[in-house]
């Protein structure tokens, strides 16, 4: 039996087969594909971290604004405390830019509505907090009851 000889067109002319070079190109391409998948995971993780950070800052800011609403006697006082502007016709609204979390300036919108409960008034504030870009706002509702006795000078 005669030994098999490699055919001339299968060699690159330098002792290595063309298949070897094709294989290396395929390996590099596969590596790029795998790396792109890994990088995508990293980018998703980064984006999730950023969004989580913004959401936490929004929640913390909304809590502080809710405390301000609880301790404010009127929308004007709330606007003063937030150093914002009061607006609205049907419902009172207060808009402000605050930075209750260091390094995280937020846009705050507080819409205040009131409802007579017979013995007093229930004020409801819808607090909406978002970052400067305005993406994915967080809303917190806070209520404050003011007895008619308080309005007349009695205790709350």
């Amino acid at each position, binding site marked *: 039996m005669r030994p098999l000889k490699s055919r001339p067109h299968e060699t690159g002319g330098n002792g290595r087969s063309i298949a070897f070079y094709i294989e290396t190109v395929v390996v590099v391409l596969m590596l790029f594909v795998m790396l792109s998948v890994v990088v995508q995971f990293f980018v998703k*993780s980064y984006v999730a971290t950023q969004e989580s950070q913004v959401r936490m800052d929004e929640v913390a800011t909304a809590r502080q604004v809710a405390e301000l609403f609880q*301790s404010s006697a009127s929308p004007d006082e709330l606007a003063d405390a937030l150093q914002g502007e009061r607006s609205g016709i049907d419902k009172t609204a207060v808009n402000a830019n605050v930075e209750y979390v260091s390094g995280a300036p937020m846009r705050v919108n507080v819409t205040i509505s009131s409802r007579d409960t017979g013995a007093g008034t229930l004020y409801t504030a819808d607090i909406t907090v978002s970052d400067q870009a305005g993406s994915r706002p967080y809303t917190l509702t806070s209520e404050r009851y003011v007895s008619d006795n*308080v309005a007349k000078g009695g205790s709350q």
Partner: protein
Amino acid sequence: MISSRCSNRGHVWTLLLFAVVMLLMLVAIVFGVRVYDMATRANAATTQLRAVEGYLSSALKANDENSAVSVVAGPQGDVLRIATGDGNATSIYLSDGRLVEEYGAAGNALDPQSAVPIAKLESFSAEVSNNRVTVITDVGTVVASLRSAGDDR
């Protein structure tokens, strides 16, 4: 001679391929480490903020009594003093880069050695209005409304 040159070219090709693979893996690892570092830092900052905010809110709300909260000047800035009604008070202040809590007789001088550390902080100042306490720290601002303010009326 020609065979040796071809063999060297083959080695260079293999080495180049290995270098490319290693470089890409290094870039991916460095990128991953940076993302992890960023996530950890964000988590730490959030945890510190929540620790300070949660502690201050709880301390103020738990002892929300008429004229119980006051601010006095201390050796390292403001001291938030919350009277507990039995002649004692909880003093919250900054000591050596830490927010500490000290419980003792209301008139006693501060003793940071016996204080309990709460969180690492660089700045701490407090302000009490008639129905609101505002605490400003380097991590953020904490506002607490005092329901007991209505007792004055």
